[in-house]
């Protein structure tokens, strides 16, 4: 090896190069590879280029295919700062190199027509001559490498071009590989994030669980300082905010989150920085075409900007979270349905135990009853109890509402009324006392309408009292008429210290006491016409000579005929007493 600072001018390939430069050449693959951090890599390439071909300075440009611009990098004289700006990729000498894919050497740049002097102005430099070589691998151009202003010589040589091209090829390789590895890493991270999130989604049992996990995963993966998810399902549930550990978003940003009703991602640039970077954004979580929550991301700690990959990943995770939400919601709905069905079953059994199915037999009267709830758990009930050998109490009642709580309330009311009735001979007093106890337990406006008939077998009297129940029917055999029995009085459970009236009726052989709830008279057909208690009155009148079972069957038949097969009826409850 000859030590010489100058390379000899030769057209064939026999040129000479200094030992140091040769060593540098050999070391290129070692130092210029895909493992180095990007800025450091570019720095090394630029410095090596300058050294290798003896120029004053070098620059490197990377092509951004998406917007066809070149990103310009150069190293300042104190060798530390990397300038950066971009310009259109079709301009100037650089444009030419990119287009042709071949090196260009220009000996007199200032007079070169294609010279794009914006770059000069930008870095405060006057270009005398240039070598510009493309950085490419096979057909793929990633940018170009330039060395400017040959030192100690008038012009650059062909050998310089060859050296620079070699460096450029290695650089291109390093850059391409680095990009590939970077993409692969990002893809892997993306998949890993999605996997973690899908695990969280699969095992989260509640929305709370899901969102708390999601917030923490997002925080970890994006290295974001603040993430917050807000969910708002419907008017029943208030908005909840789930924050990551170092949450410090300002209050007004939270307001932005809550206001998000559209389905677009919204970007919120920070006003305190004069950087135009986006450093927070809100992504809607959409399920079933509705915004069910808002994902807020803020304050990326690293670059202060969202890369395309990050945006894509955030969108994907938002979708995943939304889907998971929806699944949980469906699951909870299903569970709720099962729970209600279970509850209903328990209630129905309870009710069946309460409403008497067998009726006591007496010489003086026949009794039958019928209870058919519209839903599994109805609100109607009747009760029969003995106060003494010749005093029997009959209750027919209707609890407001349906379902489990109505069932419970029904059991409660029945017990209270029974206890007072067994100890009180005045039906009006029974209702008054029962009301005052029931009202304490009726928290959500529940009430029960109740008609109480106390039959005295010895005196042959019926004493009646009413608490808001619909008028009942009495058939008098002597007069051969049906009449309505009605007394004023509020339902039980509505107002404290309500008072009630009572009335005495003498009964005779052949008379019928027909007790029922409004499920019968208020039953409607498909034309929204009510069955009506007048109609019921005439049915009883017509069948007054029949026994109680027959009367019962007839009423049920007539009702079914009227309502029609497909219509849903309210609870059908009746208690029929015929005196013998």
């Amino acid at each position, binding site marked *: 090896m000859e030590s010489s600072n100058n390379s000899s001018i030769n057209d064939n390939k026999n040129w000479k190069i200094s030992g140091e430069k040769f060593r540098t050449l050999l070391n290129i693959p070692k130092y210029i590879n895909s493992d180095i951090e990007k800025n450091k890599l570019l720095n090394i390439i630029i410095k090596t280029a300058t050294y290798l071909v003896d120029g004053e300075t070098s620059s490197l440009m990377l092509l951004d295919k998406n917007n066809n611009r070149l990103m310009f990098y150069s190293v300042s004289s104190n060798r530390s700062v990397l300038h950066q700006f971009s310009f259109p990729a079709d301009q100037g000498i650089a444009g030419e190199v990119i287009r042709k894919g071949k090196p260009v050497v220009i000996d007199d740049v200032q007079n070169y027509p294609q010279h794009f002097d914006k770059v000069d102005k930008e870095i405060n430099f006057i270009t005398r001559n240039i070598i510009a070589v493309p950085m490419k691998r096979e057909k793929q151009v990633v940018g170009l490498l330039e060395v400017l202003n040959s030192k100690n010589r008038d012009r650059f040589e062909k050998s310089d071009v060859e050296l620079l091209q070699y460096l450029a090829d290695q650089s291109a390789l390093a850059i391409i590989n680095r990009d590939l590895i970077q993409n692969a890493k990002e893809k892997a991270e993306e998949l890993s994030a999605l996997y973690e999130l899908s695990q969280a989604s699969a095992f989260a049992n509640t929305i709370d669980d899901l969102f708390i996990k999601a917030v923490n995963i997002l925080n970890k993966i994006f290295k974001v300082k603040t993430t917050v998810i807000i969910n708002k399902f419907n008017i029943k549930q208030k908005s909840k905010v789930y924050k990551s550990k170092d949450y410090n978003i300002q209050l007004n940003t939270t307001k932005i989150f809550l206001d998000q009703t559209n389905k677009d991602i919204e970007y919120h640039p920070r006003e305190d920085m004069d950087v135009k970077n986006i450093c927070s954004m809100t992504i809607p979580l959409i399920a079933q075409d509705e915004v069910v929550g808002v994902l807020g991301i803020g304050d990326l700690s690293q670059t202060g900007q969202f890369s395309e990959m990050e945006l894509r990943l955030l969108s994907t995770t938002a979708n995943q979270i939304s889907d998971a939400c929806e699944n949980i919601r469906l699951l909870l709905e299903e569970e709720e349905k099962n729970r209600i069905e279970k509850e209903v079953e328990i209630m129905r059994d309870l009710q069946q135990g309460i409403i008497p199915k067998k009726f006591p037999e007496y010489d003086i009267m026949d009794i039958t009853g019928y209870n058919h709830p519209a839903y599994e758990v109805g*609100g109607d009930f009747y009760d029969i109890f003995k106060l003494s050998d010749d005093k029997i109490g009959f209750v027919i009642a209707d609890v407001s*509402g349906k379902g489990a709580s109505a069932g419970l309330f029904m059991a409660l009311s029945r017990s209270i009324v029974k206890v007072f009735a067994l100890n009180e001979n005045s039906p009006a007093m029974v209702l008054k006392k029962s009301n005052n106890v029931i009202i304490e337990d009726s928290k*959500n*406006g529940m*009430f029960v309408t109740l008609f109480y008939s106390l039959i005295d077998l010895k005196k042959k009297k019926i004493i009646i009292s009413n608490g*808001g129940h619909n008028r009942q029917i009495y058939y008098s055999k002597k007069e051969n008429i049906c009449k309505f029995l009605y007394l004023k*009085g*509020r*339902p039980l459970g*509505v107002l404290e210290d309500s008072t009630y009236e009572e009335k005495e009726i003498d009964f005779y052989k052949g008379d019928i006491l027909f007790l029922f709830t409004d499920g019968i008279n208020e039953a409607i057909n498909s034309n929204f016409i009510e069955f009506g208690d007048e109609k019921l009155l005439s049915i009883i009148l017509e069948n007054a000579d029949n026994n109680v079972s027959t009367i019962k069957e007839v009423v049920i038949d007539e009702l079914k005929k009227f309502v029609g097969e497909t219509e849903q009826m309210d609870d059908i409850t009746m208690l029929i007493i015929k005196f013998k």
Partner: protein
Amino acid sequence: MKLKTQKVNNIRIIELEGRLDVHLSMEVESFVNEVIEFGERFLIFDLQNVKYLSSSGLRIFIAALRKLNKLKGKLKLANMNESVKRIFKVVELIDLFDIYPSVEEALKSFECKS
């Protein structure tokens, strides 16, 4: 059950529409509970478009009335049609409520008190 609501000064007017039976009355009930929880004390129910009221529907009014009375609030009903009035009469609840033929008159009645 459709539900429309607006506020006039510190009085909330709730307009109900349709058949107030057991299913849909639950929706109305949660709305009313929420509204009371949020601090509202003066309610007017506009019932002009209520076609039918079941005992579940009645229950909501009773519950609201009792809640508001306890909190020193007021509940008024306006625009009852005949069939709804009948339902209230049958269960002897008609004289439990302040009933007005129109929302305007119900609003006016609030002014007199304050």
